[in-house]
């Protein structure tokens, strides 16, 4: 007996799609100084979102908790080899292969974010610069593997995992669902992100004019 049950709570979904937006945006704005302020703003957003997710991994609902996707390497191997044969076991939350991508993404988001902050504060040297690029490209690679995995798993288990991450629900046994959606926390997260973006943009919109006029009119008083 299966019916529509709630699997992903609202904060987990808000986190997921905000991270998608922030990471993609940061990646796309990396190559130009024109978008440097947006790149930095999105990098801070990634770090803020991850900080929340680390807490939510302990205090969130069942499938958001780290304990629900801590698999042994044997479980991962078993899952993947079953997947190849087309008979992988169905998991309501993260499956073992997917969880590997999640752990990698958490690590890469933190490390690329932190190296970015170090660079922006001029406290990193060339090695940090290289690391920031390597880690960001590695993160993009894992994102692509993650998306491919979602596609494979969706086809194999005949369930739309993308839709599940939007609506929060899946078809499963009723007792496997989570009770609370914590919608209020999701709303607060969206408000915090929106306020940060608006505030950061407003502050930056004022500052550059000052810099340009200084460069044009006060060439002599360089410190």
């Amino acid at each position: 007996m299966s019916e529509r049950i709630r699997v992903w709570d609202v904060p987990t979904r808000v986190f997921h799609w905000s991270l998608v937006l922030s990471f993609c945006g940061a990646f796309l704005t990396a190559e130009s100084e024109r978008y440097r302020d947006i790149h930095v703003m999105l990098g801070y957003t990634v770090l803020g979102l991850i900080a929340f997710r680390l807490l939510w991994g302990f205090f969130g609902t069942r499938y958001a908790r780290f304990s629900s996707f801590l698999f042994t390497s044997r479980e991962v191997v078993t899952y993947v080899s079953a997947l190849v044969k087309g008979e992988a076991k169905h998991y309501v939350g993260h499956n073992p292969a997917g969880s590997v991508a999640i752990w990698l993404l958490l690590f890469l988001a933190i490390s690329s974010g932190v190296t970015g902050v170090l660079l922006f504060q001029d406290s990193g040297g060339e090695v940090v610069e290289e690391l920031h690029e390597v880690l960001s490209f590695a993160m993009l690679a894992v994102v692509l593997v993650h998306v491919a995995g979602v596609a494979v798993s969706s086809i194999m288990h005949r369930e739309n995992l993308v839709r599940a991450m939007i609506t929060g629900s899946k078809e499963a046994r009723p007792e496997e669902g989570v009770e609370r959606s914590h919608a209020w926390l999701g709303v607060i997260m969206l408000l915090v992100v929106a306020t940060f973006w608006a505030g950061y943009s407003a502050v930056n919109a004022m500052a550059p004019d000052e810099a340009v006029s200084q460069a044009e009119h006060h060439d002599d008083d360089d410190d």
Partner: protein
Amino acid sequence: MSRINTLLILLLVVMSGLAIQPALAETPNQILSAVESSAKTAPEFRGFSATRGEQFFKSTHGNDWSCASCHTEDPAGSGKHAKTNKVIKALAPSANAERLTDPAKVEKWFKRNCNDVLGRVCTPQEKGDVIAYLLTTRK
């Protein structure tokens, strides 16, 4: 076991690669002559000129930014990022000995910044002119 060894070796190679970089440092003149050898392949190559480099550096090339928008009109003084307001260390080797000593860095920043200012990559002629200009500016 062999997989761990391969990983270790890979890690060591990467680390030594990162560590070796400073040893490959060049002088600004070596970097200039490398640019010159690729500029020479163009039939219209006229040698490098600091005057032309200065004009290039201060011109907006029909857009809104010039090199000087961030680096200021005095490359021997520190600059200020036009978007983030952050201090940029002086470009001229006379004021900042680290400048023009790492070919990869020079390539990387010419590529990024030419794209921002001109909307295209710079030609070797343009790069050489700018480097020639940077080498003549004094504190």
